[in-house]
Structures are given as structure tokens and as C-alpha cells.
């Protein structure tokens, strides 16, 4: 008979059992961190490891690459933590996806990127004179983004301060459409959003407009430039949100969030991005560039009532329209199969996949020679193309600091800004807090780069 005993110590067997359970749990959790990447050939021909998102290279494209180039692609899902682990272990992928606007200078400054100028110089597929200026986002001279050697290339791009709007929503509320080729001001945009938003019983049934940029860093840098200033200091080691231009940009964005006319950190869109919400007719204006046409054009009815509009301007500010993304790929300096990787790079950016992307309408091709492939069969496609071609004349590169990632900037912004969005602190107080938090991060980043 077993009797209960108060306060009896754990038996050794019981202790071992509990410990084993705990250790197995820990081991199971940690095993997710372990990874192996083989760059060895599986069969005849060479192998290239690409760290990308599933949509970047579909299984069909992997097969096509094998057919077109004889090179086998091993795809690794993009994950920044995994990438850092692979770089640290000296076993990086051969090609890595990244956002040109925010990542290119960051990685280049840390000396992990392969300079690609010698490869471009020899290439007959990717000729320097055929490269769109957006590819300058992938240049870095040790101080400034947009100058110096090339470290990668964008697969396609958009001018991300532009916006799409649904004419039905404007008609329903009797709001005038924005001019086709001339920009409205940010103030007008916000006013329209306020008139277009539809609410009922504490719920927003139709967002008047969405304006969040690709990242908060690039959004605020672009808007500050549109107000005629610069968010970063000349050496990119500091931000200053208290300058009149940066304060104007910040004030506008906080007002957009505070009035809850669109999705923000204090009023999130459960879809996580505008696409499905716009498709459902629940956003009247959506801040997105040409690329969203790829989604809109899949629904003819929606395409016919949708219009692309120029990037707004600030009263008295210059008309600029930057690219906040420029997503593409780079080659790590320690990549093992550089020549094969470059062949895949050429194929991906200049051959069949590039042509397919260009004709799909999911972005502007980054080779000027492929522009003619952009969709222009239907009236609505012609209309959009006309606006986009006009907007390209105002393209500019807004450089980002190499001392922080876009994610870090955004995380610090997200931490400080909701209080101002809710009206708990003033925009000036927020500007001071952002200066303090982001400059500390930039200082750490500068120390790391040396």
C-alpha cells in the first residue's frame, strides 16, 4: 500500500523523469534553430542556394532554371535570423533576397556583400546602360546609398508614395477624383480620406484611405524629402524629427492615425496589408505603387473602377516620387558558387522570369529594355500606364541610413508613436522621443560598422 506523505522529497527517478521531459522540450524548441544547407551538387551540373520568399521563385521557376541554365536551384525560405546564422557560420546562401531601399546599404556597410561591378561589366544580359536608375538603391560607396559599387539589383519596382483609389467609393460620397497626372497635396488626401471613411457602431466599415508606406523609415524619409528636407543627417548617423520638414511629415502621419481614417498600429487591418481589403471594396484609397495593379487586374470589375494617382506633395514642397522597396537579390561575399550564382542572377533579372514579371504588371521592370512588356492591352491598363510613365519623370532615390535596418527603425517608431496616435502625447514630444531612441540605435550601428 502506498501512503501519501506531506513534504516528501522528489525521488531520484521522478526527478530524472521530470528533467528528461524538460530537456526534451528545450531540445525540441532549439532544434528549430539548427539548419543545414548543402551547396554540393545533387546530380550533374552546378547547384545554387537561394534564400528567397516562396513567391520569388516558384517550383516551376526552379524547374525552368534547370532547363534554361543547367543549374539546380536549392531554395531556402527567407528568414533574417537564419541568414545571420548562415553568414556567421561561414556557409551563406549564394543569393539572398533583400529590400534595396533599407537593406542594401546596411549589409554593404557590414562587408558581407559581394561587389558585382566586375560581373555587370562582363554581362551581355544585364548591361549597365540598360539598368533603370532604381537599381542605384543597390549601390553604396561606404558613406551614401545610391553611389559607388553595385551590390545587387531590384527585380522590379514601384514608386511607393503613389496611391490607388476606387472611383465607386468617391462616387458614393460625392468626392471629386484626384487629378490624373498632377499630384494632390497630403492635406487634400487626408481631407478626402475623412470624407470617404464609413463608420457604424464603433466599427469602420470602409477605410477612407490607407497610407503607411512600405516601412515607416522609408515613408517618413520620403515624406520629409517631399516637404523639402532630409530626415537623416548628411553622414546618416542621426535623425532629426524636429526640423520643420520632418516635423511636418511626422505630424501628418500622426494625424492620419489619430483620425482613424485608415489602418494603423492603433487600428490594424486584420488582413495585414491593403490588397484583400481593397479588393473587398473596404478601402477607398490605398497607398501602393504600380505593383498593386498585378492584383487589381485579376478582377476586371475592380480594375475598371480603380485608378492610380501620383504621389501627393506638401504645399510648397518639391514633387518627388521615390521607391521605398526595390526588392531584389545580392550575393554574399562568402558565397561558394559565385559564377553559377551570377548566371542565375542574370537569368532571374534579365531573361524569362524578368520578362514574365514585366508582362504581369506586378511592378515596373528594372531593365529599361523590358518596359515595352508592361501590360497595355485594356483601357484601364493604358490609363494606369500613362500615369505611371508620367510619374517616372519625378523618380528620385531617397537614401536610408546604413546604420540601422528598416525593421529596427520601424520597431522603435512603433514603440513610441501609438501614444501620440491616441493623443496621449504631442507630436513634438514624440519627435523628441524618436530622436532619442533612433539616434541611440544609429550610434550603436555606427560603432558596429566602425
Amino acid at each position, binding site marked *: *500500500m*502506498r*501512503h*501519501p*506523505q*506531506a*513534504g*516528501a522529497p*522528489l*525521488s531520484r527517478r521522478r526527478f530524472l523523469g*521530470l528533467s*528528461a521531459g524538460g*530537456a*526534451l522540450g*528545450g*531540445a525540441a524548441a*532549439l*532544434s528549430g*534553430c*539548427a539548419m543545414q544547407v548543402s551547396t554540393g551538387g545533387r546530380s550533374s551540373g552546378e547547384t545554387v542556394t537561394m534564400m528567397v520568399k516562396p513567391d520569388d521563385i516558384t517550383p516551376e521557376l526552379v524547374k525552368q532554371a534547370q532547363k534554361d541554365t543547367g543549374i539546380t536551384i536549392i531554395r531556402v525560405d527567407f528568414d*533574417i*535570423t537564419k541568414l*545571420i546564422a548562415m*553568414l*556567421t557560420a561561414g556557409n551563406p546562401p549564394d543569393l539572398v533576397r533583400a529590400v534595396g531601399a533599407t537593406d542594401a546599404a546596411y*549589409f554593404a556597410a*557590414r*562587408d*558581407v556583400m559581394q561587389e558585382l561591378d566586375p560581373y555587370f561589366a562582363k554581362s551581355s544580359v544585364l548591361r549597365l546602360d540598360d539598368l533603370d536608375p532604381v537599381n542605384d538603391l543597390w549601390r553604396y560607396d561606404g558613406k551614401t546609398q545610391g553611389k559607388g559599387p553595385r551590390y545587387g539589383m531590384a527585380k522590379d519596382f514601384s514608386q511607393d508614395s503613389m496611391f490607388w483609389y476606387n472611383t465607386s467609393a468617391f462616387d458614393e460620397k460625392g468626392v471629386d477624383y484626384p487629378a490624373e497626372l498632377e499630384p494632390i497635396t497630403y492635406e487634400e488626401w487626408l481631407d478626402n480620406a475623412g470624407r470617404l471613411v464609413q463608420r*457604424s*457602431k*464603433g*466599427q*469602420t*466599415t470602409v477605410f477612407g484611405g490607407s497610407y503607411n508606406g512600405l*516601412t*515607416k523609415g522609408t515613408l517618413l524619409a520620403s515624406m520629409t524629402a517631399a516637404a523639402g528636407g532630409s530626415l537623416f543627417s548628411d553622414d546618416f548617423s542621426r535623425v532629426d524629427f524636429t526640423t520643420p520638414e520632418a516635423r511636418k511629415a511626422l505630424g501628418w502621419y500622426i494625424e492620419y492615425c489619430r483620425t482613424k481614417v485608415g489602418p494603423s*498600429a*492603433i*487600428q*490594424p487591418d*486584420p488582413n*495585414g496589408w491593403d490588397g484583400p481589403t481593397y479588393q473587398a471594396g473596404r478601402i477607398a484609397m490605398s497607398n501602393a505603387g504600380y505593383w498593386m495593379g498585378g492584383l487589381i487586374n485579376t478582377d476586371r470589375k475592380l480594375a475598371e473602377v480603380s485608378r492610380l494617382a501620383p504621389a501627393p506633395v506638401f504645399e510648397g514642397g518639391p514633387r518627388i516620387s521615390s521607391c521605398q522597396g526595390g526588392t531584389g537579390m545580392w550575393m554574399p561575399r562568402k558565397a561558394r558558387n559565385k559564377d553559377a550564382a551570377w548566371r542565375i542572377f542574370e537569368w532571374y533579372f534579365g531573361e524569362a522570369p524578368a520578362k514574365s514579371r514585366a508582362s504581369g504588371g506586378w511592378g515596373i521592370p528594372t531593365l529599361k529594355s523590358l518596359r515595352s512588356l508592361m501590360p497595355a492591352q485594356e483601357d484601364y491598363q493604358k490609363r494606369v500606364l500613362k500615369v505611371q510613365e508620367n510619374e517616372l519623370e519625378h523618380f528620385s532615390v531617397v537614401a536610408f541610413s546604413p546604420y540601422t*535596418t*528598416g*525593421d*529596427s*527603425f*520601424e*520597431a*522603435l517608431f*512603433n*514603440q513610441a508613436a*501609438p501614444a501620440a496616435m491616441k493623443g496621449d502625447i504631442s507630436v513634438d514630444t514624440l519627435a523628441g522621443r524618436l530622436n532619442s531612441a533612433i539616434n541611440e540605435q544609429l550610434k*550603436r*550601428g555606427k*560603432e*558596429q*560598422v*566602425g
Partner: protein
Amino acid sequence: MTVDQISSVADRPRSTASAGRGPAADRPRSSMTTRRHRAFYMFTSPWIIGFLLLTIVPMAYALWLSFTTFDGISPNWHYVGLGNYRELLNDSVTWDALRRAGLFAVTSVPLSIVAGLGLAVLVNRPLKARGVFRTLLYLPAVVPPVGAGIAFKNLFDQNAGATNGVLTLFGFDALGWLADPYARYVLIMTVLWGAGNIMIISLAGLQDVPRELHEAARIDGASAWRTFRSITVPLLSPVLLFQTVTGVIASVQTIMPLLLAPIASTAGTTTVPQSNYLYMIHVFAQYFALGRYGYASALLWVLFALILIATGLIFKFTSGVVFYNVDPEAKK
């Protein structure tokens, strides 16, 4: 039995004893012990190797990182000694996050144990379709946390969630469930939703309670509540202790607030409403959003130490009320 047989049996102990004392007889026993040791290490080696490689080595690596400014990628990191630990002591965000994590643990652990135990008592009764109830109540516990997070996020979304749909149907205004001040309640609901895990363990404990003790109590005229309080709970106390310890550890390590965050991305870590910005969310933000591997590792080591202390305190303060089934004969 014949006299001869008796005599031969009587001889046996002597001969055995004699063999046991001699070196020749030691050999088989010693080789048996060696074989047992070998088998022990053979069977436990996968665990020991896994423990060393996947627990001790990463912990040591994290300890080393905690003395550096390493950001995972930059070449010019340097040692800062105890600098990260000093910074941590002066970081009000860290302390606020720790305080919230502690509050979350002392709220969610008792609630989930009470809920799990209550469900276990219910499904331990002779009900019709008892198996179906047990399965249904346990099902949420096997849903992956990511799935649970997405489901709750959609359910409680202000503009499109079913919860607000019901509220507005009855004429109430929609609430911002995923923002302060309601976000903390949604978080606790996710914990209670997964109480099936605790229910299963409690159920196993309940079925181990000797039936005769309950029958004796009933004969003595004890009420159901008195029986539960004086017999069931004491006999379940080791199970409850186990659930408390593992519950506290799990609750301070939860990343569920991330899955409920308004922006589901690395940079969205800091959009977690303040009431749900718990210690592990802060750690996650420092590691992956801000790339501060050194500082985040220091945060984790402090958490490890605090968990050890909390576990020790739980054992200390419950030592007088936890009853273990120990077989006194086994000690002799």
C-alpha cells in the same frame, strides 16, 4: 521432501555464500554491473548528447554573447563585460515588462489550473458521451499556437471580428479588443482556451485517487465538497505542483502577445499593446527587431535565473502541503 533432499538444500546457502566471497564469483556480478552501466549510458546517451549540444552549448554561447555588443552580423562588436547587465538594471522598459510577465503568471496560472481541474472533475463523472466531451475539451490544446493566435485575432478584430458582430447585433458599440485596455483579457482567454492540457493531466491524477478513500468519506458523512477538499486535492497536490511550476515557466516565456499583435512582423513586435508587452516580447524585440543579440542574451540569462529562483520558492512554500505517494516498504 526426503532427508537427502533436505541435506542438499541445506548445503546450498553455504556453497553460494562461499562462491559469493571468492574472486571467481565476483567476476560475473561485476560484469553484470558493467553491462548495466553500459546499457544505462547507451539508452540515455541520445538525451545526454542532445542536452549538451542543444541546451548547454547554446546557453554557454548566449552567456558569452551577453558580455558583448554583437548584433549578429557586424564585424566590430566588442566585449562590454557586465555592461549589458548594468544597462538592464536601469532599463525601465525591461522592469515594466518583467512586472507585467509576473502579473500575467500569477493571474493566468491559477485561473488555468482551476479551469483545467474543474473540467477534469466534470469529465471524470459518469456522463453519456464522456469521451466526446473529453476530446472536444482537449482539442484546443493541440491547435498550434500560431493557429490559435490567428483565430483569436480574427475573432476579436474590431471591424470584422465575430465578437463585435455579436455585440453590435444586440445594439452595443464595437470594442477594440486587441488594444488596451482589453488586450490583456483576450490574452488570458487564449490561455484558458488551452486549459484542456491541464484537464488531461488532472484527469489522470483524479483517476489515480483510490476509490476506497472516497467511499470511506461518504460512509463517514462527508459532503462532496469536503471530500474534494480533504481527499481529492491533497492526493492531486503533486500534479497541481507540477502544473504550477511548468505553468509559471511557460507563462513567463509566452510569445502569444506577438501572435495577437496588430502588425504581424518582426518590426511589429513593438506594436504589442502595452498591457501585453511581456518580458519575452521585449527579449524578442531586442534580438530580432533591434539586432541587440548581446543585450537580449543578458535579458534571457536574467530570466533563467529568475525562473530558477521562482521554482525554488514554489517548492519551498509548497513543501508542507504537497503529498507524494511513497511506498514506505520501498525504503527498507
